[in-house]
């Protein structure tokens, strides 16, 4: 599955970039994130309980940040496994400074989904993925708003 999109953050690029390196922020933004632990500078371990309608699936996995070019771009590698299957995704994230203390995040990526989720859950995957991205960005907006305002 290919993913692609963009989101406009109302904060300077450095702040947005920093947020993407903060496990607490990322953990709080992903719906169903039960645990997110920083292993080292660029590796996190996570436990995720996704609950979408009838589907409830637990995933454990890790998140790796690579090719970091602060504050311009970063590559996220996500690997998760659970009873319902596995997800392996690579996301290329770019932060564009639009001035005026706004940052345009652009992402492209590819997710490899396997197991039961892929074999019988096709109908749900796309809409659920889209909706999860939406939720993540909404939550990040909120986090940003709080932090940015505090500063």
């Amino acid at each position: 599955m290919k993913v692609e999109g963009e989101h406009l953050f109302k904060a300077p690029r450095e702040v947005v970039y920093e947020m993407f390196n903060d496990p607490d922020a990322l953990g709080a933004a992903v719906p169903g994130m039960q645990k997110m632990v920083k292993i080292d500078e660029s590796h996190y371990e996570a436990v995720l309980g996704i609950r979408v309608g009838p589907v409830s699936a637990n995933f454990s996995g890790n998140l790796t940040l690579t090719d970091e070019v602060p504050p311009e771009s970063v590559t996220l590698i996500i690997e998760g496994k659970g009873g319902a299957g596995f997800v392996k995704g690579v996301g290329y994230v770019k932060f564009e400074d639009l001035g005026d203390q706004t940052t345009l995040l652009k992402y492209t990526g590819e997710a490899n989904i396997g197991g039961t989720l892929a074999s019988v859950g096709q109908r749900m995957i796309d809409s659920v993925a889209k909706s999860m991205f939406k939720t993540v960005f909404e939550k990040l907006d909120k986090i940003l708003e709080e932090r940015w305002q505090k500063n």
Partner: protein
Amino acid sequence: MKPVNFDYYAPSSVDEALDTLAELGYDGKVLAGGQSLIAAMNFRMARPSALVDLNNVPELSYVKPTEDGGLAIGTMTRVFDVEHSAEVIKRFPLLIEVSKYIAHPQIRRRGTFGGAIAHADPAGQLPSISVLMNMQALIKSKGEERWVDGQDLIIGPFMTVIEPHEMLAELVLKPWPARTGSNYVQVSRQSGGYAQSAVASIVTLDENERCKDARMVLMSVGEVPILSQKAGEILVGNAPTREAIEEVAELAVTTEIDPATDLHATADYRRSITRVLVVRSLTEAVERAKRGG
């Protein structure tokens, strides 16, 4: 394909059900008709730790006229019973029309009206109709209840505002004014299958055959049922001419929907048929309104 084990509760009253849901909190899940849930459980895609079965709560199953001439439908009323209710036939032919597209007869026998809506499947007919008709949803939890507008109930694919400790108890359908026509059309690959696109509409005409109200919902072309604004904007106050309806279709397709490509249809195809279905649905709804609904 056997489900995982779970704690099972079979309350016999609404209060008992709410107590149980309150106790279970996040772990609890309501079992209504189970026609989507149990299938997902058999695949082990769904692994709820506790089920609160409402099938032994007879007080949740009814179709009752309301004082204003509408209907109140209990959440556990089987789709089959809604489909065959004389009260529904009299007031809301749209529900009858849409019912025959909902899966297959055996599923409608067991599946429930409220369960289907709370399931909020983007390709589900009843969630879309609940948005279109703005059914008033009564959501109960232990010691509390709240009403939510049908158009605010669904917040994402398979997601509603109903919290795990809550349950959808009733849906209230407001009566339609005179000279209201409705219609549901869909394109699916097979009978009873998921629609690649579907459109339902309700049009009310005034005595001069101008639109007093026009509502339309677009299904399977976004993450949630899409309540079109264009139908109202363009049609209300005007004669629902072919040109006006085509304009609604054009704008709805270009500005309101966000179809995806999947195994069964490309996004482009979905756009194309949605345009066709909007025209067909609105045209037919207008015709029916002219005939008195």
